[in-house]
């Protein structure tokens, strides 16, 4: 029996999404075509768009379908930057714990488009430094092109104070984008209430398919496109409508939001059992982000002093348990997590950390299996580290 505790990387598709997708795969017609088949496909897409808009609390016209969360992030960050750079604003503000799909386009804007990137730090619990942001806006607010701060961090699950970020930004009329890839379907999310200019979603993180993302972009705001072509999606994103993925995205989103509360309660119970058992077996282990005000129910980021994460991953993998650690470089080598480093870890402790992420298929038996092998895995990993 394998135990999958890497739901933050990707989570199994829910049945309703698989049904919606497979049904749509059998349908003929380019949704941009004017004939009957085309109109039928387009109708399914627009219904999906309306359904998603209701779940995110935005207008249907504010939904832009993309090929991935990464594409949505790139479109938002680069597009908002370009649209405001003409007004002399070239400062891009991000946090130190953003996903690479924000960090790297920000770096690219710096390297190629004259952006100055300012990074907002985080405290030991992984919460962004609002005071730093406040001061930055007070002093240099008129230079800021865009602020992008993620809603919930993918490694620690720590939820960021986005409403306060928007409040600070509003004072200087700065657009705020938020990468909500991890938070959607896990915590309540309202585009309207948060007052965001843009946000990003990704289908495969909440039971939908791969290869589909959503950029929610405030109505009336036009930004330069990354992909030029047929002009689908507000001229901001061209490419033939991916109807099967779009309808499945909507079905999964519906499932995630309507079952959010019960799943969160269940996962919270499992998580607390897991943490209790884990700390009993490994007393010097500690949970990263444990003291943050709000954390996603499914993510447990834990440091096991005296170990190395790639050793732990191999040993857990051999036991049929899947979890993850930081991110790997292009050569496949585990690197210390930039998120943990930003939280004050040194290289060694950051490399001793693992992320277990629970999801909608996780059971109490899964947790028991992990706790069952944990002492032996930790013992071996520590021995391997002493070599």
């Amino acid at each position, binding site marked *: 029996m394998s135990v999958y505790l890497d739901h933050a990387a990707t989570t199994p598709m829910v049945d309703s999404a698989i049904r919606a997708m497979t049904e749509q795969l059998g349908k003929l017609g380019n949704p941009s075509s004017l004939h009957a088949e085309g109109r039928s496909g387009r109708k399914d897409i627009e219904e999906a768009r309306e359904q998603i808009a209701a779940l995110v609390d935005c207008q249907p016209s504010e939904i832009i379908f993309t090929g991935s969360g990464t594409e949505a992030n790139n479109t938002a960050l680069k597009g908002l930057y370009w649209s405001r750079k003409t007004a002399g604003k070239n400062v891009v503000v991000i946090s130190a714990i953003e996903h690479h799909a924000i960090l790297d386009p920000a770096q690219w804007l710096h390297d190629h488009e004259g952006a100055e990137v300012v990074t907002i730090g985080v405290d030991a619990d992984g919460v962004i430094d609002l005071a730093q942001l406040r001061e930055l806006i007070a002093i240099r607010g008129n230079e800021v092109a865009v602020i992008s701060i993620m809603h919930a961090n993918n490694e620690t699950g720590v939820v960021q104070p986005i409403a306060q970020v928007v409040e600070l930004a509003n004072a200087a009329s700065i657009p705020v984008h938020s990468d909500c890839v991890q938070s959607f379907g896990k915590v309540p999310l309202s585009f309207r209430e948060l007052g965001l200019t843009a946000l990003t979603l990704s289908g495969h993180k909440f039971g939908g398919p791969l290869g589909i993302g959503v950029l929610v972009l405030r109505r009336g705001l036009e930004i330069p496109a990354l992909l030029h072509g047929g002009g689908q999606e507000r001229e901001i994103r061209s490419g033939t409508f991916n109807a099967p993925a779009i309808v499945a995205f909507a079905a999964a989103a519906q499932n995630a939001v309507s079952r959010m509360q019960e799943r969160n309660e269940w996962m919270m119970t499992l998580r607390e059992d897991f943490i209790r058992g884990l700390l009993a077996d490994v007393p010097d282990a500690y949970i990263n982000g444990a003291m943050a005000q709000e954390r996603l129910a499914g993510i447990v980021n834990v440091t096991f002093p005296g170990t190395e994460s*790639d*050793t732990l*991953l*191999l*040993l857990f*993998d*051999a036991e049929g348990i899947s979890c993850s650690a930081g991110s*790997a470089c*292009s*050569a*496949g*080598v*585990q690197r210390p997590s930039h998120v943990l480093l930003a939280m004050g870890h040194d290289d060694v402790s950051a490399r001793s950390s693992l992320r277990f992420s629970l999801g909608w298929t996780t059971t109490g038996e899964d947790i028991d299996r992990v706790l069952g092998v944990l002492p032996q895995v930790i013992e*071996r*990993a520590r*021995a*391997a*580290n*002493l*070599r």
Partner: protein
Amino acid sequence: MSGGVDSAVAAARAVEAGHDVVGVHLALSSNPQKYRSGARGCCTIEDSHDARRAADVVGIPFYIWDMAEEFHAGVVENFLAEYAAGRTPNPCLRCNEKIKFAAVLDRARAMGFDGVVTGHYAITKEGPMGKTLHRAVDISKDQSYVLGVLTIEQIAGAIFPLGDTPKVDIRKEAAARGLSVANKPDSHDICFVPSGDNAGWLHDRLGSEVGPIVDQNGIQVGQHRGAYTYTIGQRKGLNLSVPTADGSPRFVLKIEPTTNTVVVGSREDLAITTMYGENPVWCGPAVTSMDQRGYVQIRAHGSALACTYRYEKNQLIAVLDEPLLGLATGQAMVIYEGDRVVGSATVCETSA
């Protein structure tokens, strides 16, 4: 699993032998090249991909282990220090000694594995001395020399499934197993010098201080840009300004790093009969001060030279039956008793 054909077949054979096998690719450079260029190097991202695909075909889990720090400290720095001291090191031996059968083996054992399987062409045999190291049946591919730096404890944790098979048959076997690396060229040269330009690589790191090339009488006959880029016995690339009286070629006899001097002389002056080695490693019972007959090998693909050897005053001493032309210090001298590796030491001195 380097991404080459040998380790891929070794992994497949280890699985068939009933072992529970995990594939590991070593990341040895903190800044790897994306693609292989020719037959050089073995740790590009493309090689790591080839290793992953081989593991998929063999049906084993695959991981990349970051050994860049250990490799730099144990192999690259030693390589530079040896050249700077006027010796000619062999980094592949150091890698086996410090990385593959030390850092990797120790880590694997701690994690619960029994040993490290590699695609080296060598044979191990169980006997009264324990598990001992022997030459491969394919003498042209035999790699027992580069494994000659391993102790008997290290050999105990080593598995070489290819030693009983000629290389051509390994390629055929790889093709039959559906391994796409079956026809991948063998890697040569030094993996961390991807350009293949050893002298240029050393110049970049050790500087280019001009110094004299002198004959045995101390008379300057040319100049060089770093004594360390020369090796004993070298004839080409000396660019000498003063020819010999009879026009005979001259060879590098000696490298003196302290004075940055290269000494050249005639072919006859290169001849040595006795070599002395330091820091010995025994793969079985230690060599004693009693003379023994055997063979010594001083290059990876060199021949076995008949000799009488003994261990005395912390030095492994081999006296050759026939003189040898040119032996650089820093090279490993590996002693054989028949096809069995007895032990090895690093050449620190030679005499005629």
